């Protein structure tokens, strides 16, 4: 079985008040769940029935969040929220992290190759 997709919208049944749509939106976007719920209530009060239909359609159509996705680390949850919001920016972030690693590793390499006493002793022993 393939791993669950992390760029899809799911109903978050574990943090649900009623059917998990608001909790799912909060999990998908990273917005605080209370803000989403207040927004939904406001939309229902202002929106003459259409938001209720959208809510029911989402509750009926969207799949439940797979159990594997509940077990991921908080920083991974944040990472995938970033991917869903803007995949391009996340890709650039990952690339910049690799560049940072490259730079730090270059520092280590410079130190080890230029001034490691043990290395020069080894070379001395070979002579």
């Amino acid at each position: 079985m393939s791993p669950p997709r992390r760029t899809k919208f799911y109903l978050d049944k574990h943090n649900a008040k009623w059917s998990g749509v608001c909790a799912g939106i909060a999990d998908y976007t990273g917005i605080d769940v209370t803000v989403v719920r207040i927004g939904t209530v406001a939309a229902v009060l202002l929106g003459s029935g259409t938001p209720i239909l959208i809510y029911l359609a989402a509750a009926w159509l969207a799949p439940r969040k797979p159990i594997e996705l509940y077990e991921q680390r908080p920083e991974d949850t944040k990472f995938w929220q970033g991917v869903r919001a803007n995949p391009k920016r996340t890709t650039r972030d990952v690339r910049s992290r690799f560049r940072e690693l490259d730079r730090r590793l270059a520092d280590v390499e410079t130190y080890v190759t230029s001034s490691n006493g043990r290395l020069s002793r080894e070379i001395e022993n070979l002579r």
Partner: protein
Amino acid sequence: MGSEIIVIPAIFIALPWIIFHYITQWKRAGSLTSEDENLLDELHELSRRLDDRLCTIERIMTAENPNWRSVACDPASIGIADESVRRIG
């Protein structure tokens, strides 16, 4: 009468406009294929592991020589490099 001129277009034009705007945005975000997603996941995980390893290495080097960073920037200024060069030479 006057308020209907604002409210009706707001519901029948602005609301669907906003909804479809976000639907197209979601579709664009959803254009990330399954392979892209796995690749990104792997790279994210790999960068995290490399970061951990490099932190360990940097900690060990700091324990051995607290100012190794300045040595790496300018080996000659500390004198260690000169010494080792002399020994080799």
